[in-house]
């Protein structure tokens, strides 16, 4: 059973960017909570406020109003950062340093004793699949390799919380799989992971809970399992019937073939209505099954209409 202590907590968090013609409300009254041991996916369309929120949690930005706390301490405080590993969206490290030197720098900042740094770096280099390239300058690294360095520095020191911004950006499928394994391993040890990603398939594979944000506000916050369950739909293939007019709400005609029609009903009420209509029309049901919905379907359903 998971400990319900909040690792991340925001209360009415607002961040307003001033300086342009009009102030930009990047985050407005955001309330979110991430408990210990959870893996939470933080999703939303571009410009929703995900990176701004993460920057506040890391102390790069300061709240205009409201509150953000990490491990009970003010977000961005030394106490919070001591237990947090962070992977930024864009991997930028000193191009003139080698991978080893880069990790050694971060190890020193993490107060890892010098005697343990060598072992720790060697282990990390192997974990992220950079063995053999660790003594080359980072300017020779590809974007994917730099992201691996980023993962290495994020998990260095075995933090209790990992915050990842656009976690799989720039990673090839192999690297993505490796990262997934790292995060699952973190999760199995009771660590907390909070990450934003546009790769909803990764969110589906990793997360316990999903927070959907748009225009700086939380739209939905649900355990992933329940969310996906709510996205299950009924697929019915019938013969001997015509397309009902009007079609019930949340029912779509997927396929119209030779004397057969395939309907998809998204919601429970739509399923009931559809079956009723088909029965009344004397349709003969050839096939009927429940189909799993995807997070992408959910995402598009909730925010897709706003993107034009």
């Amino acid at each position, binding site marked *: 059973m998971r400990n319900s202590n909040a690792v991340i907590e925001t209360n009415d968090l607002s961040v307003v960017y001033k300086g342009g013609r009009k102030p930009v409300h990047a985050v407005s009254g955001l309330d979110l909570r991430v408990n210990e041991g959870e893996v939470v996916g933080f999703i939303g369309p571009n410009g929703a406020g995900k990176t701004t929120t993460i*920057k506040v949690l*890391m*102390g*790069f*930005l*300061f709240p205009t109003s409201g509150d953000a706390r990490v491990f009970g301490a003010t977000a961005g405080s*030394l106490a919070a*950062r*001591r237990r*947090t*590993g*962070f992977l*930024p969206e*864009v991997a*930028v*490290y*000193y191009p*003139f*340093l080698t991978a080893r*030197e880069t990790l*050694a*720098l*971060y190890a*020193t*900042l*993490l*107060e890892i004793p010098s005697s343990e740094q060598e072992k720790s770096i060697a282990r990390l280099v192997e974990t992220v699949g950079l063995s053999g390239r660790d003594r080359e*300058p980072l300017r020779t690294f590809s974007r994917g390799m730099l992201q691996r360095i*980023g993962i290495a*520095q994020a998990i260095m020191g075995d933090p209790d919380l990992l915050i990842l911004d656009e976690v799989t950006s720039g990673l090839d499928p192999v690297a993505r799989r490796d990262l997934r394994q790292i995060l699952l391993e973190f999760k199995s040890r009771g660590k907390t992971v909070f990450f934003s990603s546009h790769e909803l398939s990764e969110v589906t594979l990793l997360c316990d809970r999903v927070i959907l944000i748009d225009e700086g506000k939380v739209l939905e916050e649900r355990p992933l399992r329940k969310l996906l369950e709510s996205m299950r739909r009924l697929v019915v293939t019938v013969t001997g019937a015509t397309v009902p007019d009007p079609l019930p709400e949340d029912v779509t005609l997927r396929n119209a073939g030779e004397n057969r029609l395939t309907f998809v009903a998204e919601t429970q009420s739509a399923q009931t209505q559809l079956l009723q209509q088909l029965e009344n029309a004397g349709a003969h049901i050839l096939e009927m099954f429940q189909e799993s919905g995807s997070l992408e379907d959910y995402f598009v359903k909730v925010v897709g209409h706003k993107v034009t």
Partner: protein
Amino acid sequence: MGTYAKKLVALARVTVLESVRRKDAYVVLILGVAMTLGAGIFSRFGVSGVEKFVKDVGLTVTSMFSIIICVIAAARQLPTEIENRTLYPLIAKPIDRSSFFVGKLLGVAVIASAVVIVFFILLRLILLAFSIPVGAVFYQALYLRVVSMWFIAAGVLCLSLFTTHAATATISLLVCLAMQMFAHTIIYVHDELTGISLRLAEAIYWLAPHLELFDLSKKVTHGWPPIAGWVLALMTLYALIYSGIFVVIGCLRLRRMPL
């Protein structure tokens, strides 16, 4: 070494490594060679009296280029880190922003001091090659120039948090290279000023950082005796105070700066 000091040294080391690996240090060598050649050419005048000339040219080149290198290195540090976002993974670690500022200052000051020392060594070798003697004042000039580098680095780093990279470098170079002219002008016009202009001129004089007071090159050139120890002590204190002021301002600015 305590963990805090280790962090500062780690940041400083990165700054120095960057300068070395970007081959900025090669500029020092090229300039040093140019200095040597220049002095060699002038020695072919074949008239006596060239000793002061060689010392003068050597010290002028040393002062000017060490200031230029210090300003350019310092002006680039923080804006580049912020612009390139290399700052984020660093600040994400348990290091406060003030320590980051101090670590960067340490790195720049080490680079600039090393440049000054290399220049002075090269100059000393040139003077030895031409059998030109120097007094203890030469080494005092070296000491004050190194101290001034710390002072300049702190000021430029602080300024870089308020303006763009290019503006920082331009303003800093203007201040550094024109400071003596400014100080002399105020002394000269002081007699002619009255009222509020006088008070303002005096206030500016007292507040402005007097870099020209770290320049012993004229005394070295013209063979003056070494200066009193209390002057060196006082100028060190002066540099420490001003550096401290710049560090405090810089840290306060960086602490509340949205990144």
